[in-house]
């Protein structure tokens, strides 16, 4: 087989090498890709006591442009946690001030948009978001916000998980002692996952390298290091077009005007557009004989 390989032309050997490399890479990706159930929980205990009302906060998605996290809140009651009159769970979420939990229907699921207190998509892909979610539970599901001081508190356990694509979550849960029922304060922090940050950083590098490559070609032509070819005009214009299309590869569909754009994309577009103009000026300002036409 080695003898057969050696009889091939250089191009054929390169082709065989590339095919083998691709197959090995594909096998490595298939073998190394994580599989199976992943533990998404990032804050809170794993076990639930019989007397406690569990509140599972699942961050389902993050809308960075609107600066909100879509969260699902599941209540899961221990065997003796919910009295006959039920439990009223109060939250700091404006659209979800109270969740009622009744005995016998202990599992209750609601979703809400939670605005972040800090963070801005303009820092993409290095944007970080933070916010707090506060919970307090008292007996009697019919308790209103004005009445909950008079009701006995229900022991509460808050657990937080993250299933938002493209975001890593971190958080701490602290019990805030008050004169009435203790508050459970979930401090939430969200950042882009390392693969997203790495890929967008690579995109920034690619933008700059492509733009500088075009600048190099145009300089070489303009300084007459390389001869004029009219095809260069089509090349630079198609790159101008391609750079815009390439931006769609940025994960999370960031709005135009982020750090990523100001640090790379705008520069690349500006440089390549300027190169088109420089080429045209060179084409028109140079004598035909010098262009080799």
């Amino acid at each position: 087989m080695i003898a057969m390989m050696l009889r091939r032309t250089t191009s054929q050997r390169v082709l065989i090498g590339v095919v083998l490399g691709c197959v090995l890479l594909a096998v490595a990706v298939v073998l190394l890709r994580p599989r199976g159930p992943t533990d998404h929980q990032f804050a809170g205990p794993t076990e639930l006591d019989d007397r406690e009302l569990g509140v599972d906060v699942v961050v389902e998605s993050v809308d960075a442009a609107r600066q909100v996290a879509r969260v699902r809140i599941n209540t899961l009651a221990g065997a003796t946690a919910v009295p006959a009159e039920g439990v009223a769970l109060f939250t700091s979420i404006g659209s979800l001030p109270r969740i009622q939990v009744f005995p016998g229907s202990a599992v209750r699921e609601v979703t809400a948009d939670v605005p972040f207190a800090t963070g801005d998509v303009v820092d993409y892909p290095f944007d970080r978001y933070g916010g707090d979610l506060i919970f307090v539970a008292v007996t009697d599901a019919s308790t209103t916000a004005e009445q909950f001081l008079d009701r006995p508190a229900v022991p509460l356990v808050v657990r937080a998980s993250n299933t938002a694509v493209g975001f890593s979550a971190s958080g701490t849960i602290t019990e805030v002692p008050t004169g009435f029922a203790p508050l459970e304060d979930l401090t939430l922090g969200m950042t882009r996952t390392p693969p997203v940050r790495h890929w967008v950083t690579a995109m920034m590098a690619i933008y700059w390298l492509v733009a500088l490559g075009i600048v190099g070609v145009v300089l070489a032509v303009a300084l007459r290091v390389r001869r004029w070819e009219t095809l260069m005009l089509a090349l630079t214009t198609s790159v101008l077009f391609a750079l815009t299309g390439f931006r769609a590869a940025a994960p999370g569909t960031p709005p135009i005007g982020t750090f990523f754009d100001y640090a790379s994309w705008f520069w690349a577009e500006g440089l390549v557009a300027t190169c088109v103009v420089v080429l045209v000026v060179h084409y028109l300002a140079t004598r035909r004989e010098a262009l080799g036409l």
Partner: protein
Amino acid sequence: MTPGRWILLGLVVVAVLVAVVVTTRVPQPGPNDQIEGAGETPPAVVVVQLTVDSVDPGRGVMRVRIGLQPGSLAVPADGVAVFSNIGTVPVIRVRTDGIVPDTTAEIPLLTGDVVDYPFDKYTAQIVFGAVAGSETTLAEAQQKAALPVAVNGFVSTAGFDISASAVNEDDLARVDLGVERWRSTRVWVTAMMVLYWLLGASAIAVALAVSLSDRPWESRHLAWLGSMIFALAAFRTAAPGSPPIGTFFDYVSFFWAEGLVALALVEMIVFYMVVSRRRLAA
């Protein structure tokens, strides 16, 4: 070293410099910026934490988040009702012993139009007033003495500079907000306008040079001009804030550039069809 290698070396140096500059500019996490001109918080019973989350010039609204905190003055035992001129949040009730969740609302922009992009400027006005008694209705509020209320303004919106002037009159807190695009946005879009004109003028100049026989006919010119029409349209998506079509930016540059390139393409096609084969080959 050959000139080509000198160029390559220069580009590598530029690439390294760019990498260093970009690395030092990577944003660091921090609290939201306080609105420029918001000033010190005066003594008040309630402090309104007003955060501008986003500005949507296309719909003429600004989305704000309103949180309430106790001020330096004592809160009455029966709580406070905070009234505002925001249609969707007419009143926020504050009890001394309860949780007051943050409220989000959209407020209309009073002046300004996205058609002036990227030089569009907007104003908005928000008024807050507070009276004792968390259950007070608007009709009852007019019979009660107003309590001092203060406003702290924060910005967490991208692409806009927001300034504010707070005026306290008769214990009402009135916040006048001014909104304009970031300077970097205005500079970049101005550069885009210049580039659009240069690209459009380049297309016309090449078409004229060919038709006046100063440059030889090449079918590659058609490919270049055809792809330029698409490229110019794609280049427009680089305008920050995704402005709607039909703004100042479009009428001053984008439409002209597209028109000029299309005209140049048509002129080249006509030249190709009309001129004799011998002259084309010359």
